[in-house]
């Protein structure tokens, strides 16, 4: 803290004091987010250069004459010094230009926007499952510390931590789709239901509700329930574990004893007072969980043939469609950075100690 800022904080009224910290923090954060974004573009740019595919050859083919080769090489700017090339790349990225996908022959950004809603839908349902189940389980584990409930919940979340998600997905498909027939199989919809509902949000469950088509809605839910439960289990494991440790920290505090002594019911003390104080930290956890769900989606989508970002990136990878892979990396990276920023912003707004430290 600079001397001037300290002076300002001392003399100004309560409101300014309350918000000077967060505002300064936000400014700092924006700076670091911009730096991180630059770092991300550096990495993708670097990956684009070290890849052992000659981008010129990819365009002209290996039968082209040396003149054509050189002309294209100059056209796409490979004769320029690396900083110039990076600058060009950065300006393009900032304009949303990730190049053209080699497979679909469309701008990568269009492709990404087309497939991303499927991933969002999957991750959102998974996140809801993880949060709705994970938080209560974490609280119960904390209040029953050391007893069998705690052991069971801890072990269940440990299993979730250790589970290869693609394997769990395959077992799920085998059991609930192939053997029991409880849910629909891979994909987002049965083939007969494709393209019935006009795309509004890209989330099939929402779109079918807007259109009022209950058949499509239930079909999409039936396709969604297995992959999102499996991803949800992984986020449940993390959320429950973090909730437990936050709650243990709260339950040790003296105010718990005070509220109990005051005569409040233990239920209210735990679920209202203690959990209320934990929410702030949980928001951070939930934001980060969402980020990790995007990662898990790459594997889950491969298993469930779910036409989202993960499957798109995977297919691009094997077709040496570098623009698409890097575009996807960039998109996930940006979402990740955004989520990190969000949780960083929320944290000091509610926790005064974090405000002091920064």
């Amino acid at each position, binding site marked *: 803290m600079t001397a001037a800022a300290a002076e300002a904080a001392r003399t100004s009224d309560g409101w300014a004091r309350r918000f000077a910290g967060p505002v300064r923090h936000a400014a700092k954060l924006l700076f*670091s987010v911009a*730096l*991180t974004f630059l*770092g*991300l573009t550096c*990495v*993708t740019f670097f*990956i*684009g250069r*070290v*890849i*052992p595919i000659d981008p010129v050859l990819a365009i002209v083919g290996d039968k082209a004459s040396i003149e054509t080769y050189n002309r294209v090489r100059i056209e796409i700017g490979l004769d320029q010094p690396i900083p110039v090339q990076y600058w060009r790349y950065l300006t393009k990225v900032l304009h949303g230009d990730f190049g053209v996908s080699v497979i679909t022959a469309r701008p990568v950004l269009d492709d990404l926007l087309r497939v991303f809603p499927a991933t969002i839908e999957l991750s959102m349902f998974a996140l809801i499952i993880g949060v709705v189940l994970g938080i209560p389980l974490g609280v119960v584990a904390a209040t029953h510390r050391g007893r069998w409930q705690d052991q069971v919940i801890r*072990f269940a979340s*440990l*299993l979730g*931590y*250790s*589970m*290869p*998600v*693609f*394997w769990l997905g*395959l*077992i799920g*498909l*085998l059991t609930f789709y*192939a053997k029991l027939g409880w849910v629909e199989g891979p994909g987002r919809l049965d083939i007969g239901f494709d393209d019935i509902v006009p795309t509004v949000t890209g989330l099939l469950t929402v779109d079918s509700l807007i259109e009022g088509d209950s058949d499509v809605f239930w079909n999409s839910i039936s396709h969604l329930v297995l992959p999102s439960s499996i991803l949800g289990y992984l986020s449940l494991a993390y959320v429950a574990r973090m909730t437990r440790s936050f709650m243990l920290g709260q339950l040790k505090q003296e105010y718990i004893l005070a509220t109990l002594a005051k005569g409040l019911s233990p239920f209210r003390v735990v679920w209202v007072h203690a959990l209320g104080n934990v929410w702030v930290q949980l928001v951070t956890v939930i934001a980060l969980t969402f*980020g*990790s769900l*995007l*990662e*898990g989606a*790459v*594997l889950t989508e*491969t*298993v469930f043939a779910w036409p989202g970002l993960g499957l798109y*990136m*995977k297919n691009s*990878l*094997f077709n040496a469609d*570098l623009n698409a*892979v*890097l575009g*996807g*990396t960039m998109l*996930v*990276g940006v979402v*990740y*950075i955004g989520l*990190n920023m969000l949780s960083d912003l929320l944290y000091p707004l509610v926790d005064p100690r974090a405000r002091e430290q920064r």
Partner: protein
Amino acid sequence: MTDTVAWRGWLLDPAPASRRQARLGRWYRAWMAFRRNGLAMTGLAIVLALVLMAIVAPLIADPASANLQVLEDRLQPWSSAHWVGTDELGRDILVRVLFGARITLTIVALVSLIVVPIGLSIGLPAGYFGGWIDAVLMRITDIFLSFPRLVLALAFAAALGPGIENAVIAIALTTWPPYARLARAETLTRRRSEFIEAAELQGASHLRIILTQIVPLCLPSVIIRLTLDMAGIILTAAGLGFLGLGAQPPAAEWGAMVSSGRQVLLDQWWVATVPGLAIFVTSLGFNLLGDGLRDVADSRSA
């Protein structure tokens, strides 16, 4: 019997006579705390079994048999000849899982060997010198920390080409940042200690202080973190293998084995599930072990 008692008494002596006795005694107390933790012991047993499997694999089965294709025996269910059946090329799944343990352990070991030195060499100077060195190094760390791990590993693996070495590099590149942070935090807490000042007054160079005074104090928490991370490393490696970016066929990599078993999942489910089970049990073992180690370390500091 009296021997054992004397030996324990020597280890648990509250007034150790030598540095070695004190250190061994501390380890012994930690071990006794660890031994009481049933889950942690299970984890240790799993990890030891895995290491044993990797070591004895060539002794109990011919290395060539892992890739031996017997097409008339393809997709057999379990029998006395093939305990968990055969895959789509008639290879014995159990033998392949056994040899897969070698690949998995190699990946874990290589990643650890890369990650710890990188993390320490970034984190230690940052915490020790502070100022702009700290700012620059931690900014770089934050940038790498804010990337989604699997996706970045995917992009790296795509750029470097599929293969086990590149998978290791890709995983290592995305794993080191927490170690840098950890090493920095540990250094910061010791930086102003009197024993560091004493060493400085004796004229020890910065490098010497870092290597002889700070590194040994950082190592326990780094090792615990590493054990906890190993499950994640295994899962990421298996994920890359499953996507076809890890070890290439015919290598017996668990993730790739699950992937190749997908085609016959509905009829010959064991082809995909058995190697997946190996991944799961292994990562569970490392998680249990890491949790146990952390609990021991926590109770000691509390």
